[in-house]
């Protein structure tokens, strides 16, 4: 059945923005995940941080929470803890995920909670009109750093690998077919899944051509996704840019260990406290 995933909200991204590609891929992935019986329309929740990327919640007709800048991982983690039947997918900017909210990203990977994080990595704070983020290259010149960025960029794949993520991938926003399949795999993954999506920002950091010339499919070249060291090394490549799944392993999830019985918390009865009060007499 074709889901009604469009919304009345007007699209306000710049023409040629990589966010359009992510939007298309996500909608396709949702349709296919529902079609394949992986989840139901009403059990999907998406969330976003604050930035250009966050408008995505207004453009997809599913449950959503537009949270604060940097706080996507904890909002969807809270949902998952309360109701493990939900499929929760977070969208965050690079500024959102790697600057303001980096601790949450690291911890979500560490605890292997079954959430999916998709990062719109345009290497810039776009909505605030172009300042350097954690992933901006050395020398990247902005209004806030006219003499160029003097900090070395962070490697998100390395960050997630060392944090204990069990699904680490990279996508390209204009390779919609590939990105759709990555998103599906990430959502299906039992545990924390992460996709750093290379997303050209047409206005403040247009990498479209640069990326098109260098990207190749990592998983077509016999990469072992269980090999941590290989994942680490591939993530170091700079001349050519691999996209695909770097690393994927199974590990007990946070909520499997935390929750007894996969029922929504609100369905549990209110217990009597008399047996606890008895301890205090």
């Amino acid at each position: 059945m074709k889901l009604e995933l469009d919304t009345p909200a007007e699209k306000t991204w710049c023409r040629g923005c990589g966010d359009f590609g992510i939007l298309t891929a996500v909608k396709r992935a949702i349709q296919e995940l529902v079609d394949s019986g992986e989840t139901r329309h009403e059990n999907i929740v998406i969330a976003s941080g604050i930035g250009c990327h966050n408008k995505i919640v207004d453009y997809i007709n599913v449950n959503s929470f537009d949270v604060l800048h940097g706080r996507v991982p904890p909002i969807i983690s809270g949902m998952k803890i309360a109701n493990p039947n939900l499929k929760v997918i977070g969208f965050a900017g690079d500024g959102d995920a790697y600057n303001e909210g980096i601790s949450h990203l690291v911890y979500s990977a560490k605890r292997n909670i079954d959430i999916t994080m998709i990062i719109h990595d345009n290497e810039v704070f776009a909505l605030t009109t172009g300042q350097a983020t954690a992933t901006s290259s050395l020398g990247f010149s902005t209004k806030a750093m006219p003499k160029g960025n003097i900090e070395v960029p962070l490697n998100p794949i390395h960050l997630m690998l060392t944090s204990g993520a069990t699904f680490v991938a990279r996508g390209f926003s204009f390779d919609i077919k590939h990105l759709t399949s990555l998103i599906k795999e990430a959502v299906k993954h039992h545990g924390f899944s992460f996709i750093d999506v290379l997303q050209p920002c047409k206005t403040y950091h247009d990498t479209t051509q640069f990326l098109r010339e260098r990207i190749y499919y990592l998983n077509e070249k016999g990469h072992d996704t269980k090999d941590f060291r290989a994942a680490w090394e591939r993530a170091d490549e700079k001349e050519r840019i691999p996209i695909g799944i770097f690393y994927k392993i199974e590990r007990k999830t946070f909520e499997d260990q935390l929750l007894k019985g996969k029922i929504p918390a609100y369905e549990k009865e209110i217990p009597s406290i008399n047996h606890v009060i008895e301890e205090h007499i």
Partner: protein
Amino acid sequence: MLDEVSLLVGGKAGEGVRSTGYIIGRILNRHGLNVFIRDDYQSLIQGGHNFSQIRSSSKETWSHYEKVDLIAALDQKTIDLHEKELVSNGRVLFDSEEVKYCGSGKALSIPLLKMVEEIKGLKIMRNSALIGVVAYLYGLDLTKVNAVLTKIYREKAPKNLALAKKGYEYAEKNFDRIGEIKRIDRLPKPLLTGNQAIALGAVKAGLKVYIAYPMTPSTSILHYLAGHQDKLGLTVVQPENEIAVIIMALGASYAGARSMVASSGGGFALMQEAISMSGMTEVPLVIVECQRGGPSTGVATYTSQADLKFVVNAGHGDFPKVVVAPGDTEEAFYKTAEALNLAWKYQIPVIVLSDKHLSESYKTTSIDENNVSKEEVKMANGGGGYKRYELTEDGISPLAFPGTPEAVIKVNSYEHNPSGYAIDEPELINKMQEKRLRKYAQIAADLRSRETVKIYGEKDADNLIVSWGSAKGAVLEAMKLLKRKFKFLHVIYPKPFPVWEVEKHLDKVKNVISVECNSTGQFASLLREETGFLVNKKILKYDSRPFDPEDLANRIERVLE
């Protein structure tokens, strides 16, 4: 017959001072007496100086007293520091092998360590021998001592029971009783801290998810609920920091689980942006703020009431919010339950404002779980066309949780239209802002049927004491000591401020005296802001220690002179 007893147990951190004080309290409580225990401890793990002040009486006991009739010293420092707090005919009990003391007629020396050696016990077990001595001195039943020790020490109980007996018999042979405490016949009541009462109250109002990052004096809620999570059907999480704490809790609330978080001033400060988001997104949440000495890191293990204005004004922007400040353990139970109900009824953040003195002091508490329930909330009927922020007359939009077929639940921290999509248009901004604020009128109306203030003392007294939070205990005890007539107005809800109740009491009196533990008179200032009334007799305390009833009574006398 003694009407009441006050004693102090002191020693180094790590010597079991607090648990000894607590066990003595439990034993007194078992005798049908009312008990209050204040623990004074430092922010360190070993060494330093800790003490517990225990007050017990056949009447309701609201506070510890500085003056004590017995000091039980596990180390020398306890005597050096506290001898001045002893009443004229008081006694000092000490371990003859570690402490030197020769106050004539006062000294009760016992070879605690030797008793421990005799049964090949551990040094920490000498506390049980000490408990046995205390039991004899006040004429308490050894069977009740044994019952409490057995309950607490379980498999380790036998040696502790043997030591309690040794202590009791030694005292019987060598000392005179201080006196027998007058007992009362009553049903057993629990001896609870404010934090335990907060935790249990929340559970009875449907708490399902508790999330916190440790910070004294809120940490004991985390420990308590984590320890009881299976018995109470809870999920308890300790995430990376306070921002994650509150955001996760809001995620849980959005998904339908009643959730709660707690911290002290510093952690609460980190939560501001999310408190505001709770207001904007209309996702319900209860936040417990246990004040400690401030500003900044402040005085971690001591008390304060200096966050009142910060909490009342928490979160940027205009949005409806409630602040409730229980004054004792009973109110902590009922008012936390009420906080959860209000949060969900009105889809707002509700802050429970406590402090170290309430959160960590023990008090004999009367609570009945049947007096609390999960109150009805306005739920959507389900189906298509659901609008999370539907405009309604009362400002409350029906709730639905993700997982509801056909309902798409869009929540937004950005200003939004009734469907939850981001907007910037001025007319719609006004509409949405007014919708949220309409809930405030509903809340104020609802609170008129709940207890927002309590009145104590003489109805027609000329002198009115006003106070809030845990200062209540010392005020009630001070009133027992004062000769003049007083009326006491205790405000439980700092926000919405119950002007309708408070104004009734302000102009009919000659003097209004405010009592609070901060240095600027924040409550008096709030009272002025809300009612226009200027309090000119303020009693403030800001050394991070709670009021002592006798000292407070003297200060009240002085301001009236």
